[in-house]
């Protein structure tokens, strides 16, 4: 008995020692947490993000969180206005030669990087050359597909020569993944210590916790509103809502209207913004089951896009045509069936030789975005009304991406990115040489010709007419079924002032926001 008691005592003492050691170890953890918003006289703006940014060099960025963080640290050559049209940024709008092959940019003087060095044309040339170098693995290479060379004749001048006229070129220069980096700092160093000319400069990063920035007093656009900006990682949406309600986080962006609604309170407001992104039912005309245009048109006529928005996306969207670029936006009603028309759908099915319908395999993924599976199920129900039996295949996101890239599907629910320029949006999908033509599964000599005309002129009126024809070609042949552009919800504390919500909830004007 005594022996047992002694061993028990030993076990308890050992347990207490382990507890004490663990707490001490926890205390000694190497985490060097930054100051929190609430403890910094309300001067640090806290922006909630759900994951750690995966890239820290502008030209490599692909994740949403990297985009949000790097857009505060780096500046692209050109800025964009609320309609996403290019405007002057680090440089004035370019002078374009009469043949459309030479773009001359004049840089603003006195722009500095965070390390204090001056930003000049050498840095712009270095950045653009890096983007075009395959070894850089840049996600922005496609914006430079028409570029022949970049020259820096003097510190304030950058001359870009194109292989062929490309009116969509300037739009690419407004994107955060073309942000200018210093030519004398190694890429390895930029990975851990970003050095840009954006409104905020890098202070520290704690993986899986936060990224802390401070105001860039030399920012060429003006003085940023907050002394500091902290991107705080809170992986769970519901926790983010609680953090907003209790004032621990000042701003966060949600794509789910219900989540955004639960966050709203007397001290928290919500702004909804539209998007250039679009949700579509991608049909591969190259697949035998969808090769007949009447089959695809039957699908178009059988689907009520508004029903998809209301039921699957909980109202968080606006129905759309193919082109979402504000300057060239498609008329949503300009298609054979702007609203659901089951009689017309049946007549198209009869013309296709399948009056009783057919079986369609539709792939979607749970991991892509919140409403992807609901959209597939809604379409399944709608097409069922005209006898089209839809097999919904719900895949994990990696499998989905692999099958999508390989064009290994008949139909797919997709959320694709938009662009201020329609050529950037669709030339890659619907031209014979486009990188995603195998995925799109549709091409025609008319489209090839129209896309070539669209970038050969910089005249906006001419381009508008050309892209209207492209839009008509796409919907009249039901290349895909364009469903809606999603809404995003910016939830912010009432103590935040001066924030201008923008399309796609982009953060290009976040620097103007201050906190009381």
């Amino acid at each position, binding site marked *: *008995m005594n022996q*047992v008691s002694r061993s*028990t005592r030993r*076990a*308890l003492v050992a*347990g207490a020692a*382990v*507890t004490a050691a663990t*707490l*001490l170890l*926890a*205390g*000694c*953890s*190497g*985490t060097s*947490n930054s100051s*929190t*918003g609430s403890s910094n006289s309300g001067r640090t703006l806290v922006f909630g993000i759900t*994951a*750690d940014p*995966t890239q*820290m060099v502008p030209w490599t960025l*692909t994740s949403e969180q990297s985009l949000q963080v790097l857009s505060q640290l780096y500046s692209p050559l050109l800025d964009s206005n609320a309609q996403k049209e290019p405007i002057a940024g680090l440089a004035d709008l370019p002078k374009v030669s009469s043949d459309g092959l030479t773009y001359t940019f004049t840089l603003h003087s006195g722009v500095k990087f965070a390390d204090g060095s001056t930003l000049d044309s050498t840095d712009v040339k270095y950045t653009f050359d890096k983007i075009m170098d*395959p*070894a850089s*693995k*840049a*996600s922005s*290479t496609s914006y430079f597909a028409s570029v022949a060379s970049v020259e820096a004749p003097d510190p304030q001048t950058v001359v870009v020569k194109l292989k062929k006229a490309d009116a969509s070129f300037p739009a690419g220069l407004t994107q955060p993944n073309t942000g200018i980096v210093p030519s004398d700092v190694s890429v390895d160093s930029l990975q851990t210590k970003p050095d840009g000319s954006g409104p905020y400069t890098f202070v520290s*990063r*704690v*993986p*899986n*916790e936060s990224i802390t920035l401070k105001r860039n007093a030399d920012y060429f656009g003006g003085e940023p509103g907050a002394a500091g900006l*902290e991107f*705080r*990682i*809170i*992986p*769970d949406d*519901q*926790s983010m809502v*609680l*953090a*907003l*309600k*209790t004032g*621990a986080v000042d701003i966060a962006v949600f794509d789910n209207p219900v989540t955004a609604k639960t966050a709203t309170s007397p001290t928290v407001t919500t702004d909804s913004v539209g998007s250039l992104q679009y949700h579509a039912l991608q049909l591969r005309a190259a697949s035998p089951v969808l090769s007949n245009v009447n089959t695809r048109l039957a699908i178009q006529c059988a689907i009520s896009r508004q029903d998809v928005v209301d039921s699957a996306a909980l109202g968080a969207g606006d129905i759309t045509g193919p082109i979402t670029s504000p300057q060239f936006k498609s008329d949503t009603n300009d298609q054979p069936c702007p609203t659901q028309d089951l009689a017309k759908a049946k007549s198209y099915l009869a013309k296709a030789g399948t009056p009783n319908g057919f079986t369609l395999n539709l792939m979607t993924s749970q991991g892509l975005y919140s409403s992807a599976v609901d959209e597939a199920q809604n379409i399944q129900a709608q097409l069922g009304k005209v006898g089209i039996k839809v097999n919904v295949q719900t895949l*994990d*996101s*990696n*499998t989905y*991406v*692999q099958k*999508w*890239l390989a064009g290994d599907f008949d139909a797919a629910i997709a959320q*694709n990115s938009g662009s201020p320029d329609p050529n950037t949006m669709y030339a890659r999908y619907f031209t014979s040489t486009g*990188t*995603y033509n195998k995925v799109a599964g549709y091409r025609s000599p008319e489209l090839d010709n129209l896309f070539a005309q669209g970038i050969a002129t910089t005249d906006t009126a001419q381009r508008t007419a050309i892209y209207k024809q492209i839009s008509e070609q796409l919907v009249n042949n039901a290349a895909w079924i364009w469903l809606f552009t999603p809404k995003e919800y910016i939830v912010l504390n009432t103590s935040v002032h001066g924030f201008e919500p923008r399309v796609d909830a982009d953060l290009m004007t976040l620097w103007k926001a201050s906190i009381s």
Partner: protein
Amino acid sequence: MNQLRAVARHPVTRRVGETLLTLLGISILTFILLRVVPGNQITAAYGTAAGELTPAQLHSLEIYYGLDKPLIAQYFSWLGGVLTGNLGVSATSHLSVLQMTAQSLPNTLELAVLSIVVGLLLGVPLGVLAASRPGKTRDNLTQFGSLLALSIPSFLLATAVASWLANTFNWYPNGAGYNTLLENPALNLEQMILPALVLGISIAPPVMQTARTAILDIRAEDFVRTARAKGVPERRLQFRHILRNALIPVVTMSGLQFGFLLGGALVAEQIFSIPGIGRQVLLGLNEKEYAVVQSTVLIIATMFVLVNLLTDLVYRVVDPRVRVR
């Protein structure tokens, strides 16, 4: 020679050998499972944008991530690194897995210890309460409560409790950036209360059941009857003789729960934004960071296996019967 053979055949040597083989098996299994799942680091990082990569870019990325090498070479290259102290580097945070673990493991250990403490504080008194009147109302009520606590999923309980506290008292300390115990002890403990409570509530039922059963068993032992016959006061009998002995299986069971918490506190870490080792594995899985997942899983497995090995060895010291077997 005979001595060498004796050492090789010694049960302790055999047990250590088994431990090493277990770890090797775990490393192979993790390596294979990660590769069987479709996709790789390139598709994880680029998503559908991977289609715009030129063949030259794709090749360059394959070299960067080491995907151009045969699988067997990838495995031995990683294993060789592990054996020489290089657990790999995260392509996301650009920190070594060792550095990442040095930051995340203490947080998970602290959470695990506090959760066990909560589990014991709830489970043991309830076990005593249930065992005091077996089969009666208080026993039935306690058993029902323990079943209820086991049935509620951690994520639901965590969200419900946190939402209630935030909405009613405007209190949600986990929204502020995570603070370690040394940086800000008060805030750290505030941030640990909710996750430790949620995990503790899921640990309490097995603790309670174990304590209840042990108390009832020990109460029926001869030495208890003898002590009572010798006139040992009832209170002293209950605490010094019965409860103290009943704690032995509770301590053993808590050790097992502790092992599971090291790898299984992910839900609490995710919901309450605790940068622990569970989230480190999840991050690695999301980004297909093979080295991060493989090395972290190996670290968790090593801790688990080592605790088991030490327990076995301690048993050999404490209980001579094990030595004979």
